């Protein structure tokens, strides 16, 4: 019985955690410019993330070590620096974008410019981390994050033509604006498959003291949770495709996105959109900064746990403190949050090989996973994701230059 409670909670966590600044921005941009056509990319991203989370969760539950632990232990310090630097850099950008997301939501609600909100938001997040426990961060933000379901309600109310949505789930390329199309595809993948998500997830498995008995919970959480979360991004894409695309509105600023829900749901939709943007971005802010601090602490062997008082793991606590405050700076000095988000998503996509390819080795290591190593379906999926990640790395910069404008 207790286990089903955990399953339910886990699923809720992934739904609430799925939608954040990157997926809201890229899904609505995709819907506004290309209708349902990019829906298949969301599906691909969701599936890939599901596989990666299942694997890193299994890795942690069986070996009692996090993915970052194993990156250092199995591949040595020299190699470890590569994912460390890559993840640190892109997660920092995404973190700044999330702070931007919260700030812009507050700006839309109050009329006070987003740049004023960045520092207070960072301080509030920091206070929660300093005083709170892992459970509060994980479950609190996830439950509140369920407000994101408003996207599904909005999409349904707009009565999409389902056969057309179905066709969007099959890969296709438009005849014009190809560079922009593929640029958005890369951004959407970057928004769905973020390294911080699986690094946080694998550290969370240790914080929640998972064992082999949790493998079922892990599978359901990674599978169902991501499926529901992915559906919410598809809903955002559908809503944008039906509200913005027919009028020829492109998303040039975050402010334009709120109309996507205000149009079908009226004032309630508008308010709930602001709440969704604010809460989900704030939740992701906490998760990302923890993921960064986890990776540093685990890689260097420091004491770490969000359940310990900061006095017991000073280096860990100072890592999230400093990173969080630094990440507020770009927004506080007025950098455009949407532009920052788009760059972060493409950078994230480009960073994937260094965290995906090592999994090929780890997930087949019987010393670590005993008899829970990857079967052939997982291995085929992982090889496909690894190849995809290399394509993203190669394509990211040219597409940023050609389609970023």
């Amino acid at each position, binding site marked *: 019985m207790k286990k089903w409670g955990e399953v339910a909670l886990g699923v809720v966590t992934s739904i609430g955690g799925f939608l954040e600044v990157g997926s809201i921005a890229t899904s609505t941009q995709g819907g506004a410019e290309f209708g349902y056509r990019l829906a298949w990319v969301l599906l691909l991203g969701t599936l890939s993330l599901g596989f990666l989370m299942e694997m890193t969760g299994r890795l942690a539950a069986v070996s009692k070590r996090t993915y970052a632990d194993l990156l250092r232990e199995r591949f*040595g310090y020299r190699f470890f620096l590569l994912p460390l630097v890559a993840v640190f850099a892109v997660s920092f950008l995404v973190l700044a974008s999330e702070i931007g997301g919260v700030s812009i939501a507050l700006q839309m609600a109050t009329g006070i410019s987003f740049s004023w909100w960045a520092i207070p938001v960072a301080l509030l997040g920091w206070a929660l981390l300093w005083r709170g426990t892992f459970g509060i961060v994980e479950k609190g933000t996830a439950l509140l994050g369920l407000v994101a379901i408003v996207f599904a309600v909005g999409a349904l109310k707009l009565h999409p033509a389902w056969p057309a949505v179905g066709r969007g789930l099959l890969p296709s390329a438009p005849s014009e604006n190809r560079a922009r199309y593929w640029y958005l595809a890369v951004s959407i993948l970057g928004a769905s498959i973020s390294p911080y998500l699986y690094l946080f997830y694998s550290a969370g498995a240790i914080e929640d003291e998972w064992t082999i008995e949790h493998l079922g919970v892990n599978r359901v959480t990674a599978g169902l949770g991501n499926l529901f979360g992915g559906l919410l991004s598809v809903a955002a894409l559908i809503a944008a495709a039906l509200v913005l695309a027919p009028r020829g509105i492109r998303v040039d600023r975050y402010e334009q996105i709120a109309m996507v829900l205000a149009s079908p749901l009226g004032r309630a939709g508008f308010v709930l959109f602001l709440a969704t943007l604010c809460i989900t971005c704030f939740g992701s802010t906490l998760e990302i900064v923890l993921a960064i601090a986890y990776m540093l602490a685990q890689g260097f062997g420091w004491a770490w746990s969000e359940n310990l008082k900061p006095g017991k793991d000073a280096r860990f606590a100072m890592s999230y403190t400093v990173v969080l405050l630094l990440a507020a700076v770009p927004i506080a000095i007025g950098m455009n949050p949407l532009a920052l988000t788009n760059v972060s998503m493409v950078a994230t996509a480009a960073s994937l090989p260094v965290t995906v390819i*090592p999994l090929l*080795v780890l997930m087949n290591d019987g010393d670590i996973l005993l008899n829970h190593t990857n079967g052939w379906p997982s291995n085929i999926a992982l090889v496909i994701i690894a190849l995809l990640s290399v394509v993203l790395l190669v394509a990211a910069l040219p597409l940023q230059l050609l389609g970023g404008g």
Partner: protein
Amino acid sequence: MSARTVSLEDLLGRVVHDVEGRRIGRIEELEAEIELEGDGNEYVVTRFGVGRWGPFDAIASGLFVQQLVRRITRATSYVRYSIPWDRMDLTDPERPRVTCAERELARSGDG
């Protein structure tokens, strides 16, 4: 000769030659056991694991690439020797040599 100190990292990945000057692979692992004669808490190196990946050997010097390539090439061209410590000459740690010919060495599973 007095004792010299070498870092493990400096030995890993070094190319090993045999007594005839043939390259037999790279050091990938050192196995240590508690020394029986000592006071019981002294670990000494008993065997060296030396592996070769045929055509991939040149690019496989990093630990990560080693492991990745080992998985891919296990079935085809991977050869691994387990060399007892007294056959490994570390006089020059940058150029380790085994004191016999490659054909005299025992091959082992890929551990």
